């Protein structure tokens, strides 16, 4: 098994931020507007608070697991068989996101930027990039997150703040018109995605210094919350709740409206390009983690061989959904459920074992 690479807390924060927020960033306002109407942005805030509670569970588990990389720690805690079984479940669970993300990615680019290019071509190029980065390992993934953080955040801010001129607060008022139940319904759309934060189970043991880890996790949660809430707020305030609920990617629609000095405009290609980077980082990380975990299960010393195999498997799986609606259905159904299971339910059960007498750090 590859020796555990080391990352720092800033890198952990960015990896969490990109993992939780990147894929659903574009369509989320649509679903929040559908669920909670004009109070969708409040749902994003409330959902993020619930999400932080979800994120706390794998974090606590990672801190209580025996020392060493996740597969080793699981074997120490549960014994060889059950340790590997859980490892297999985690590995397959994380891998299950990869084909979906490939398709989500391809669909968004076809809708937003390259309608005449076949999705397979887009996805193949994307896969090559993902393969290269995950092949290079965790440290380059974490460093790439740092290298790209500034342009990604800048592009996001340009879109959010660029929509301020056409924004009308009246489109958001009254704040609680649809009632608390609707807001909570919307919140349930957001919160489970924080389960993707299960990556901390692998990343926390790789930290150079674990001091102040809760602060880092909290900050990443707060930043995700701000990203979701601000994008939804800007979408509904600019486009109205009805329009937001009717476009597939409200974020892209916002980017189209941005105009700086009546010269720079139509930012959606630029915004999508930056979104590309965040999805690329997330997919590479998830593929890397899945390959690492499965390599341990199948006694493979080198996880890199598995990367290729996993991508070859992921490619045809990415084309299972027939259309964009099916992609959305999987993204807001299966992916939400799987995030919740691997990020909350399973870590919760394992946490119980650590309290029950398993070895702790």
């Amino acid at each position, binding site marked *: 098994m590859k020796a555990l690479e080391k990352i720092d807390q800033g*890198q952990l924060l960015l990896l969490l931020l990109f993992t939780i927020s990147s894929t659903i960033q574009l369509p989320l306002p649509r679903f929040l507007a559908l669920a909670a109407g004009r109070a969708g942005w409040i749902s994003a805030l409330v959902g993020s608070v619930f999400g932080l509670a979800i994120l706390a569970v794998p974090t606590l588990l990672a801190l209580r697991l025996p020392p060493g990389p996740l597969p080793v720690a699981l074997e120490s805690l549960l014994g060889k068989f059950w340790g590997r079984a859980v490892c297999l479940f985690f590995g397959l669970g994380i891998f299950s996101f990869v084909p979906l993300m490939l398709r989500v990615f391809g669909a968004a680019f076809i809708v937003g930027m390259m309608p005449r290019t076949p999705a397979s071509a887009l996805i193949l190029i994307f896969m090559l990039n993902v393969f290269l980065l995950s092949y*290079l390992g965790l440290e380059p993934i974490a460093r*790439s997150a740092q290298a790209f953080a500034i342009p990604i955040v800048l592009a996001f801010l340009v879109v959010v703040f660029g929509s301020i001129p056409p924004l009308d607060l009246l489109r958001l008022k009254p704040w609680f018109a649809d009632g608390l139940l609707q807001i909570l319904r919307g919140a349930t759309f957001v919160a489970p995605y924080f389960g993707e934060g299960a990556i901390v189970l692998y990343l926390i043991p790789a930290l150079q210094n674990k001091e102040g880890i809760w602060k880092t996790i909290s900050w990443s949660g707060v930043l995700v919350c701000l990203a979701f809430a601000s994008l939804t707020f800007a979408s509904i305030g600019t486009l109205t709740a009805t329009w937001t609920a009717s476009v597939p990617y409200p974020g892209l629609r916002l980017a189209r409206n941005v105009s700086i000095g009546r010269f720079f405009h139509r930012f959606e290609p630029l915004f999508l*390009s930056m979104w590309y980077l965040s999805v690329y980082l997330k997919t590479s990380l998830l593929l890397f983690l899945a390959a690492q975990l499965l390599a341990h299960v199948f006694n493979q010393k080198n996880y890199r061989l598995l990367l290729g195999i996993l991508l070859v498997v992921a490619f045809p799986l990415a084309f299972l959904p027939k259309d964009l609606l099916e992609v959305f259905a999987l993204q807001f159904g299966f992916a939400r459920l799987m995030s919740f299971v691997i990020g909350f339910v399973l870590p919760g059960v394992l946490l119980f074992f650590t309290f029950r007498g398993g070895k702790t750090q």
Partner: protein
Amino acid sequence: MRLPFFSKRKQEQKKEEFSPSDLAQRQVEQKTKLRSSAKDNAEALQELMGKDNADFTTRELTIPTTPSVEAQLCFCETMIDATALNKQILEPLLLSVREIALRELPGKSVAEKIGRNLLLAGKLQNFQFKDEVLSAALGGQVVLFLEGSEIAMGVELRKIPERAIVEPQSETVLRGPREGFTECLSDNKSLLRVRIKSGKLRFDSFRIGRISENEGAVIYLEGIANPKLIREIKRRIKSLDVDMVADSSVLEKLIEDHPLLVFPTTLFTERPDLVEFALTEGRVGVMLENSPACLIAPANFFDFFKTAEDNYIRWPYTSFIRSIRLLAGLVSIWAPATYIAITTFHREMLPTALALSIAGARENVPFPAFIEAFSMELILELVLEAGVRLPSPIGQSIGIVGAVVLGQAAVSAQIVSPFLVIVVAITSLSSFVVPLFVAERGVRLLRFPLMILGATMGLYGIMAGMAAIAAVQTAMTSFGQPYFAPLAPFWPRTLTDIIFNPPIWMANKRPKWLRPGNRRRQDFVVRDWAQDGENPDGEVDLSGE
């Protein structure tokens, strides 16, 4: 960190093919002790040098002491100073020692007596083995064999053609020192020694090349450079088994972490002042005989955007110009690809007036934007290469011809659009703004694959290309230190050094990413006079004097 795609099996196979056993055998053969017969030793040396070797001379002499001593003098006449040979060796040994009783001279052996008392040599070395004698003679020493002694003496009388110390053409400055290294290692060492008069400045010598036996030196400041870094550099050099290393650029490729990639991971300079700055930061230099460039390690990506002058001009301008250089670096890689992507795929991003203007200019151009831009960039590379190859007066003319042909004629003939000429011009200007970027022309190659990606997939393709480039860069290391630091990994305190060049009195610490042995560079308060209670404002009243 090892980058992928290197076949382990191949490397192992290679190891077997080039087993060091043959080298060791060769070394054992050469480690033959000298004999007591001066003539035999001289003949053996002549044999090693080749019997018909024209520049190797053996001179038999009898030193007229009491008793007289038979001796053999061996040297390469093209490598030594003949006047010094006469004055320092022949005159003392043949003229000044008549009737001197050897027995009365202090020293245990004949060799010691003659070496200590008769030879006029500042640097005298004793050799026991044939291979030592051989390399001494080839290195410009005059070797003296004495009859009855198994020890040979070497006197350094080296004189080789040298050029003057001039300002390096590729690193000129408006302000700052104007001296540059030459091809002579000892001269280069003195240039550094003059600047750093500290016993901590170390020149650890090494020899490299089976055939060329080039002399070199690992240069560092003891206590400041990280000992592990010094060990690693020496280890890499020591492990090399090559015929010859003609220049430090060859050595660079032999010892750098990623020799297959286009990005250089070792700095090089011909300026002693830059080496001085690097050494005091905790970096290590490597110099070779016959090479005017000093390698400096480790280096990160952003070091290639710095110039010597940055240290001499005021910091606001340095900061401004550094940010311009960084921007230029991006433009030089991105500009043509972005032009192709926007004109082909993302016309909606352009303001209407500009889009119409570009469309109007391209109306009669028969080629698609990609062919237009790609061919112009290729022609530009041709012009640049021709300019470099030709003598400078003709080279300038080629530049003008190129500009006229590429610019006016191509636009008039409606082969390319005027906008593209602007883009190509900006691209080439940008690539020349970046100081060491220019020297590493390989980096400029990246614009071609990016153009292809931009032409086939628009901004999406460019982003994919940049993501791949960044992935490789973030995985790269320079002698173990991350290449993309201090941006990734993000070290905020050193990050300012990318753009801002803090005034010397504020740069109290050495860069953390270099992991120097001693991080503190100077006292917290450098400008102590400004803190002085007597004259806090710095105002001096000179009227009363």
